[in-house]
């Protein structure tokens, strides 16, 4: 079931040169979009990212569990047949802060991305695909978050 995890490749060392380069990258290219992470609704979020309201598309596939026995960790995945996707926007609609993550893709990766996120309650998971030509599409899927344990 979990074979192979013993062969995990772990290169723990911090490589000095690489770190310098990394920090440089973080500073220059990636200004953290705090205003997007402050948005309290999906519509506000689109506004703060300067996106037009996306259109629902069957070319986006989401893989999510139907039921989560704990909302603290829910694994979600998105994939698409659009070959010119440049960005994913992952959202949990009913979270106090809907925006979970933004992924900027390059030609060196496929569009398939998986992440574990928190669900404050039963909610739709939304993934918006922003294409190179500026078009935006989305898909949604519900995850039911249940009460667990004996505590109630």
């Amino acid at each position, binding site marked *: 079931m979990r074979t192979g995890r013993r062969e995990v490749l772990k290169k723990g060392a911090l490589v000095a040169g690489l770190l310098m380069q990394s920090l440089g990258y973080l500073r220059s290219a990636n200004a953290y979009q705090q205003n997007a992470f402050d948005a309290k609704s999906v519509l506000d979020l689109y506004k703060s990212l300067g996106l037009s309201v996306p259109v629902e598309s069957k070319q986006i596939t989401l893989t999510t569990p139907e*039921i989560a*026995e704990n909302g603290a960790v829910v694994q979600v995945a998105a994939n698409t047949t659009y070959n010119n996707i440049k960005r994913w926007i992952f959202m949990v609609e009913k979270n106090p802060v809907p925006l979970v993550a933004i992924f900027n893709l390059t030609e060196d990766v496929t569009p398939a991305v998986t992440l574990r996120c928190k669900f404050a309650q039963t909610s739709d998971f939304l993934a918006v695909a922003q294409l190179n030509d500026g078009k935006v599409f989305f898909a949604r899927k519900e995850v*039911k978050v*249940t*009460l*667990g*344990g*004996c*505590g*109630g």
Partner: protein
Amino acid sequence: MQSFIQKCRVSCSTKGLCSGLIASTLLLSLLSSCSWTQQTNLGIDTDRSVQEKTLSLVFESFEPKGQAELHRLKQDRTQQFCSTQRGLKDQSQLTQSTTQDQLAEQIRLENQALITPPKDGNYFGDFKRGELIAQDGRGKTWSDPSESPSGGNCYNCHRISKNELSYGTLGPSLYQFAKLRGINSAKDFAQASQNSSTDPLIQYTWGVLMNSKAYNVCTVMPRFGVTLNHKTQGHGGPILNEQQIKDLMSLLLDPRSPVNE
């Protein structure tokens, strides 16, 4: 209290069973000696030396915390008897020996005698509150404040309302409890509740909620409505009060309740 301890000590030492293990502390003698003598009186044939060793190990191992005091380890007759009933596939399946059956019946009757009808004769409350009580699994643990009311823990073991997917399966489904038992309308319900004190379904449901052991002596279901001897020490009262049990009655039997959708 003192005489109770004395009595236990005497009967214990006359049997000559536990003299070596009676500790000097009051608590230990209270807990251990009574448990053994009663076990002996029950005529249960188990390995006494294992029991002795286990008891001393238990007293060495547990400590009081919050409202969960050591008194809780002192078993009443029902708990003692049911600790010896092992490997049962079905809770109504008791041992083959006649003495065991007789004992089971005796203990069942003792539990039956603890069931009391509601003081005002009204068996019903509010099904919405009942649902909240059924959902609530808190109460009586060492981390719960002793003054806060307990929940019923119902969903831990039972399917109840249709919309709650997170339910346990240790107990039978209670979904459509009244519907499956002939109460299909407000009229049926009104009729039954007018004769609450004789209606078999109302009496049965009230009885099981009050004291499940009156029906199935070693059921895993707690005795929600009775104050057991050991519960009066350290913290008082049954798990659920009368009003809470009325609310659960409504949850199960009221045709408007989500249970009977």
